[in-house]
Every structure is written in C-alpha cells, then in structure tokens.
C-alpha cells in the first residue's frame, strides 16, 4: 500500500514536472498583506487572471501585516530574491520612492511592454499620490480608502439630534458630542481612529492647509513640518479639552477606536471607509457622513487623500516577467475587475470607468454612503496641500506625533506644546533620515 502510494506520488510529480515545462509559463510573484474578505478578493483576482490567459501565472503570497510585508520585501531584495510585485501601504510609499534603482516605475513597466497606458483613466486624487513630482506613475494603486464619518442613529435619536443630518464641520461634531454626553445617550460623544492620518494628514488636505514644505514632501528635498500652524493648534486644543471629561475618547494609535463605536460607547466615529465592513456586520443602525472640515478654513472642504496600499514592481527582472506584470496591471484596470474589487472589499475603484459603471448599476442607491469617500477625493482638483504627504520616514514621524498627542490627551501638555514638539522632533528625524 505504502509502496503503491509512493509510486503514484512519484508518477504524479513526474507528470507535473513535464507539464509545467511543456507550457513554459512565466510565474509572476505577488506579495501582499490582505486578510479575511480582502484576501479572498486577491485569490479570486489571481485565479481569474490566470484563467484569462496562458502565458503567465500569477502567484499571490500572503506576507503578514503591512509593515511585515514591506520588511519581507526589503529583506528579499537585499538577499537578491525580491518578488515581482510587492504591496506596500501608503505610509511606506516614501520608503519605496527613496529606493530608486530597487523599483521600476509602473508607467515604464506598462509602456515598455507595449501595453496601452492612459493615466487619464485613473482617479486623479489617487494617481497623484503615487506619482513622482514630474507626473510619472510609480506604483499601481490597488486598494485605496478615505476617512469618513460614521454615526450611531439610535444614539443620535436619544440625544435629540437629527438622525438624518450628520455634523458637517468639526464645530458641529464637538456640539453633537457634547449633547450626546450631557443627555446621557452614550458614555462618550466622539472618538476617532488614526489621529495622524485623519486629524493631521487628511485635516491638512481637506482644509487646504500645508502639512509640510515641498508640497507636503511630494516635491522631495528638505522637508519641514508645518503642523503647528494655528488651525491645527485650535483643532487639537478642542480635542484635548473634550478629552478632559470624556466627551472625546481616545482609543489608540491605529483603528482601536472602532471598537468603542461598535460597543455603543461613543456616538460618532471618524474612520477609514475600509472599516465599513465591520460596522455593517455589527448590525448597528448607522449613518455615514463626509469627513468634517474646519469652518475657519477658507476653501474647505478641498479633497481628502488616499490611504490603503499600492503595488510596486521591483527592478532587475527579465523582460518576460515585466510583460507578465504589465498584463496583470492591464487586467486589474478592467472595469469589471475594478467593479468587483470596489463592491466586494469596500475599497475605492481606481478607474473612472469602474466608478461610472458602479453608479449606473444602482449600487450606491442600495448602499448609501459608499459613494462618500469617492466624492470626497474627487470633489476638487488636488492642490499642493492635498495630494497627500510623503516622507522617507513617515512611520517614524507618525510615531512621534502619536507620542506627543498621547501626552497632550493625558493632560500633560497643551496642544501648542504637543504640536511644537511634534514639529521639532519630526524635523530632526527627517533630517537624520535624509542624511543617509
């Protein structure tokens, strides 16, 4: 029995070897960091792409969380074993951009392989973020999200607030939060995930104020943070004041605050549009609004900037492999693939055609709020303040900001002190990173 099993195994291996060599399929490796429903989307897309043609085989490999995947890619590159495609989160964009020579711009991959490449078909707000200052698209936007406002309609009702009008400005949010707290409708009025991404980087873009010099770092060179301008100080002081009696409750540095909202402890939440899945699953009676803006900012609201991740192509691969990558990116840009990605995962579609098709299908009428993040990002042409932020060491600078915000919320310093410290410590770290 065991001998026969062994023989069958050998035979099967032999057959497998001969069949693969007979077709000479080029394998394209794709390292990603998607879990749960989003990982299923990755596998489905890879399977469909492989079935759609015979020359290339796309092999998706899960590499852990976003930072873990980035580290795995970097380590593999140093060991000369880099994958063809690596998914890198928004914060790692600066790291990848600084690695000229290690990566190959997506625009080059597409044009060199003879594939049709029209930058105009992609959403401008997203493409601008993943491009060089001269407009060359560097990476392929795979999953993009944008921060929006969620509110608990039951809590709004109890507090005597209008359940159909979510607060539009930050002042309205503070007022609503106070009312929720004082009426006893919930233990806390307002909470937020990602103070760095939502209240600093997107706050800058949405209110059209500078986050840092050099177009928020997109222009490269010596960058200095500008986040201690009066608009930021007032905003954070308001947060700090509300934190004193628990009207605003801090959850943590990343998406921990979503738990506070899901548990019904807080009535209002600002979170990534990618977080919608969990809120839908909880069965809560929720509503969605645009990200609030500052009523003191002239020209607000401007546009929000994308979070999420993009696909980078490593340099030094064979021409055949680049052709395979280009074929995959062309496939990924197809309207029906983007539609599937957008509707299934909750991330934004990256092409205008996919957005139009989704709109036509009546998806947004059935799923109110799903269009909000797209409208926020597309509303106006991005300015120098609203194309996103980029630093070679953004993770470190965000860490510094988080540390200062936490000290401020714990009542150890004022908003002015926190932001001044964040700027001076952040600038020193940027200088150090650029000194490489």
């Amino acid at each position: 029995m065991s001998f026969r099993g062994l023989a069958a195994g050998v035979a099967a291996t032999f057959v497998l070897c001969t069949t693969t060599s007979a077709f000479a399929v080029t394998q394209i490796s794709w390292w990603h960091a998607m879990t749960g429903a989003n990982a299923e989307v990755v596998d489905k897309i890879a399977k469909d792409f492989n079935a759609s043609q015979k020359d290339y085989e796309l092999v998706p490999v899960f590499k852990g969380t976003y930072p873990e995947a980035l580290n795995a890619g970097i380590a593999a590159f140093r060991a000369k074993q880099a994958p063809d495609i690596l998914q890198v989160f928004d914060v790692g964009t600066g790291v990848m951009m600084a690695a000229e020579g290690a990566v190959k711009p997506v625009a080059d991959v597409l044009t060199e392989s003879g594939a049709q490449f029209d930058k105009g078909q992609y959403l401008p707000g997203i493409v601008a973020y993943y491009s060089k200052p001269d407009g060359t698209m560097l990476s392929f936007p795979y999953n993009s999200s944008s921060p929006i406002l969620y509110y608990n309609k039951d809590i709004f009702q109890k507090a005597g607030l209008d359940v159909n009008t979510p607060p539009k400005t930050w002042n309205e949010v503070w007022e609503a939060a106070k009312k929720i707290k004082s009426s006893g409708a919930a233990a806390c009025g307002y909470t937020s995930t990602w103070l760095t991404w939502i209240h600093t980087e997107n706050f800058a873009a949405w209110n059209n104020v500078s986050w840092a010099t050099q177009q928020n770092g997109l222009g490269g060179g010596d960058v200095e943070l500008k986040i201690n301008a009066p608009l930021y100080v007032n905003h954070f002081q308001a947060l700090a004041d509300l934190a004193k009696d628990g009207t605003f409750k801090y959850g943590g540095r990343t998406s921990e605050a979503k738990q506070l909202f899901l548990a019904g402890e807080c009535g209002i939440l600002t979170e990534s549009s990618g977080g919608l899945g969990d809120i839908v699953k909880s069965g809560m009676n929720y509503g969605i609004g645009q990200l609030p803006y500052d009523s003191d900012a002239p020209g607000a609201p401007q546009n929000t900037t994308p979070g999420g991740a993009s696909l980078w192509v490593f340099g030094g691969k064979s021409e055949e492999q680049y052709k395979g990558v280009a074929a995959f990116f062309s496939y990924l840009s197809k309207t029906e693939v983007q539609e599937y990605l957008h509707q299934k995962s909750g991330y934004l579609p990256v092409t205008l055609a996919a957005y139009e098709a989704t709109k036509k299908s009546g998806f947004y009428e059935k799923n109110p709020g799903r269009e909000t993040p797209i409208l926020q990002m597309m509303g106006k042409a991005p300015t120098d303040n609203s194309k996103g932020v980029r630093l070679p060491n953004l993770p470190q600078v965000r860490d510094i900001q988080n540390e200062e915000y936490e000290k401020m919320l714990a009542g150890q310093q004022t908003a002015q002190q926190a932001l001044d410290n964040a700027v001076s410590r952040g600038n020193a770290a940027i200088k150090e990173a650029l000194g490489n």
Partner: protein
Amino acid sequence: MTPRVVFPNKLLPYLLVAPQLAITLVFFYWPAAQALYQSMLKEDPFGLKSKFVWFDNFKKVLADPNYLHSIKVTVVFSVATAAVAMIVALLLAVMAEKVVRSKGFYRTLLIWPYAVAPAIAGMLFLFLFNPSIGSLAILLRKMGIAWDPVLNGTDAMVLLVAAAAWKQISYNFLFFVAGLQAIPKTLIEAAAIDGAREAKRFWTIVFPLLAPTTFFLLVINTTYAFFDTFGIVHAVTGGGPGKATETLVYKVYNDGFVNLILGSSAAQSVILMIIVIALTAIQFRYVERKVHYG
C-alpha cells in the same frame, strides 16, 4: 577525583562536537558578527547606499534622550516584574507546601500558566483590562479607580508588569517548591519544639536556606524581563502611551523594523548583547555554584 575519559582517537572528539559548533556558528556567531558589522554602517533600508561610520551609531544611541529613557523604563519594568513574580511565587509555594490533600493537583494548576506563550498572555491581559470591554477594567472603574492604560503611562506599566509577572510566577513556583522540599524537616520540627512560631520559623530557617534559589531566580527573572517580554509589550501597549513602556528590546524592534533605521537598531542590539553576556557571566561566576537543585 573523577576519572577522566580519554578518547584514543585524536579526531573523534572534534567530530562529535562539530554539529554543536556548526549550530553555534550559524545561529549565533554569524548573526552576531552581522549585527556588529551593521552597527557600524549608515545605510538606507534597501542597502543601496551604505557608509562605514565606525562608532557613530553607538555615540548617537547613547546620547539619545529617548534611549536613556528606554533604559529607565526597562529597569523599572524588570525590577517590578521580578519582584512581583518572585514574591507571589514564594507565597504560593509556602502555602502549597501546607496543603494536606491533593497537593499535586494544586501544584499542577499553578504550573500551567508557564506553558502560555508571552504574546497570548499579553492578549489575555489586554482583553481583561481593556478600558472599554475588559471585565476587570469595568470592575476597577466600579471601585472608583480611573483605569486607562491607553493614555495613562503608569496604568500601562502596571498592566505590562501584571501580564509579564503572571507568566513567570509558575516557573518561580516550581523552583521554590523544590527549594522548600530540600530543607530538612528536622530543622523546622526542632525549631517548632523550641517554641518558634510559624512566621519566626519562616524568616529564621526557611528563608535563609532558600537564599541560593532566590538569588538564582533573581538573575533568571531579570533576564526574562529584559529579553523575553517582547511579545507581551508588542501585544499589550506597543511601547505607548507616549514612550512610557518602550523597553530596550522593543526599541530595537521599533527602530529597525518599523522605522527602518538599521544602523541605530543594530547598535542597540549590540549593546543588549553586551548586557546579556555580562548577566550570564555574573550568573556563572557567582550563582551557578551555590544553587542546590534539591
């Protein structure tokens, strides 16, 4: 005099040690040498540009107020963890000694937590003490204690120490039980006949005779708190709030793998390596000889 074993073949002993040597070379000396080399480089994450800077990274690390702060955090954390873990374990061991029936059952239960992985211990405590959903946190709040490890550095540290000590108590318990059993019953009985009460017997006979075990555990616990608690810190606080719980080991990880400052991270791990070597040397020199394993 123990008889010396002599191999007739000159080559055989070397061959027999070779596998162990090979493992040590590949898994210790090689990476250690790499770390040493990396600690003197200034390099971008991808290794495209690198510059040999001698001891610049060390100078910078040692002058960095954040690093000095991290040393302080580590010392506070280690001392607190070792103290809590040992005092509770000693108390439990002395009590378990007194149990007449199903002694083995109690002991087994007390040893169990040692089998739990640090990260899982961290998650357990994280859930129990989570300010919004943790059952123990709700209890604390009902008692009027403003419990908020997310923003309050002291609360976060207390939480970490509790999680780290809880896991280590079992290990200490095991050694204290063994140590207690090694104490001759006759001594205690003699003291009892002389009229010494329970507390007196403990402090004058049991505790001094346990000293070698205690000293041994002190070194082991300090090393544990220093180097084996990364998983707990990572799962519970991530070094926050502010930098209130950023231990040296966590800082190495954060600077190297999150912030991608490889040179500084390597320099920090070399410093840690020196500390480990020093601690091990102390242990071998002073402790190992005096401990009786019962």
